[in-house]
């Protein structure tokens, strides 16, 4: 089994969906728990790449190819997915999006990927997301965190509006709010009353972990 788990990790690092599919099937054939295959086989591959991405040793390209391989493995494990879900506790639920008026979404996509890999359930609202949509989705999904990103100074000012509207609706304490993006600095995030801020992916994940503790 140890060798199989190592191969799974390698398939993710190599971004090889065909290999990941075959290995997931082997796991089922050998009656390995799908949870074990994911947690001890495939996921560690993503963790390795995540660390390498932070250090600039690999790029988003490798992360996305790895994610595809991961999705291919999950597809095979689907028959056991109900059982898997019953056993798996996610760290929390995050509603994420690029704030109103802003269409620059690569940073948001990277954070989304890292949150997913780190065990969060992520609901991605995409780009140019109205404040109202963040709030209504978070309520509907019973989210733990609302995460908003911005690239422009004329759009980042919708972030305090988001926090203000949560207060006006009397639901500020139901959600933790995280903000980020190129023009957003920690002091400003604190000034507007945000609960969390991440300049880098690792900072963002650490902040999310702290918020859901």
């Amino acid at each position, binding site marked *: 089994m140890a060798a199989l788990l190592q191969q799974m990790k390698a398939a993710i690092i190599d971004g090889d969906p065909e290999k990941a599919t075959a290995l997931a099937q082997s796991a089922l054939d050998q009656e390995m728990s799908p949870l074990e295959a994911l947690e001890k086989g495939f996921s560690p591959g993503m963790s390795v790449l995540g660390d390498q991405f932070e250090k600039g040793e690999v790029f988003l390209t490798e992360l996305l190819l790895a994610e595809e391989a991961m999705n291919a493995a999950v597809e095979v494990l689907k028959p056991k997915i109900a059982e898997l879900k019953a056993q798996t506790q996610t760290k929390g639920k995050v509603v994420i999006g690029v704030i109103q008026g802003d269409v620059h979404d690569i940073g948001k996509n990277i954070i989304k990927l890292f949150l997913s890999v780190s065990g969060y359930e992520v609901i991605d609202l995409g780009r140019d997301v109205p404040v109202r949509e963040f709030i209504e989705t978070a309520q509907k999904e019973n989210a733990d965190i609302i995460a908003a990103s911005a690239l422009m100074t004329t759009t980042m000012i919708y972030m305090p509006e988001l926090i203000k509207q949560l207060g006006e609706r009397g639901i500020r304490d139901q959600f933790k709010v995280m903000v980020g993006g*190129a023009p957003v600095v920690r002091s400003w995030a604190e000034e507007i009353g945000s609960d969390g801020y991440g300049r880098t992916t690792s900072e963002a994940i650490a902040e999310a972990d702290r918020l859901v503790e």
Partner: protein
Amino acid sequence: MIDFWEIVRRSETGELVKERDFDMRVVRTSKKMVEKYDLKFNPEEVIPSDDAMVDRLFEAAIEYFLTVGIYCTDTERIIKCTRDELEVALNASTDQITWGKGRDQRTQYPRKVEDPRPPFCNFTLVGTPYPEEIFLQAAMSTAKEDLADCFSGGSILHTLGGIEVRSGSPAEVEAAIWDVGKRREAAVRVGHPGKGMYTQVSAAEKADAMIAAARPEFGALDRDGMLMGAIAEMKVDYDRMKKVAFLLRATYPLGGLMGPLMGGYAGGPEGSAINMVAHLFLGRIAFMTEYTNFFPIDIHETCNTTRAMLWLTAMCHQAMARNTHMLHFANTFIAAGPCTDFACYELINHGVTASVSGAALSPAASARNMYPERCTGMEGRIAAEAAHAAALSGMTRKDANALVNKILPKYEDKIKEAPKGQKISQCYDLKSVTPTDEYLELYQQVKKEVGEMGLDYSLVGSRRH
């Protein structure tokens, strides 16, 4: 040449693809092209002199562009064109733009690799936000610079007249109109009333606000430019394309604003270089661009003065200069802020790299373009003087590579901790809009040091672009 309305039609009839699937095409195609065209980043040769590799990059970018196409996020369709259509569009592009008017008028021409003519220089604050009270002085700091062939200003910091300037709100339109007026006022105040603006507005994201501001009575001259930005990577939307519909009926030059991310969907330096050159094509096809400003950014360091980013800058501008007659600016993005020796080294390295690689220069975003008020005309001066010095002294790519390699160790290992420097109110006398003695002396020291390393500044100012 392929007609803009044909492009709009293709955005409505092209292949329907989910955005995620398009992103994966970018990922896979860039990876494939890097291997097929044998492109290799050599950290020792920051400014390559390998014409064959440069031309392979250009070919790789063509194949990548024709394979991937341009994604329209509004229709979720891919706009594609043929190689013939692309080549005709590139050939049909203008090979000169005359900016400004009267005695401030300047004409920009394409440059060659190792061109002895100094680069055309646009001094910019790249949308750095300033409070209303000092916005004018910040714009004056760029407009007054001798080597600024054209200029632009900053962005308004959050409020105008006590009203928040939110994207898409009425205040955004008002801020855009105010912005172009203040820029023109800045040019008038420094004695260059006809100096061209390479972009009229930075305070607005939406097309309607930019279009509303583009009127002579608000301060725009006939040949002041307007930029249209692609969405990283290889994407456009209708809001941006609306500006094209307007500009084709107006007198203003059509500008492309391309900020591909190194380390993003297109991968490392090689894939990102392919992706950046392909953005020249995207602009020409989807935006009908006549000039293009490139601000490639390292996804981790948020600047373009690292070893890999200088290589990418050198390769891409050489590829464009050798294979087209289009006008392309290298937009300097540095990690450090004003009035630091760190910033001086970064600015000089980028200026020299762009200059010998056949680019026009657009300096500079300082302090990672993150901190309000931390960008001044001085950064433009430092980069532009280095760029002029390199060109006027006949510097080759090989010489430039040697110089840049001597300067890089002064900052590259510390780039994550780059100092954010001083605000314009700290490093300028805002009454006279002049740099402080501290900043001037700091620059003189660095200039002397870099001069001893081999950059000959003696001819700077003797010839314009």
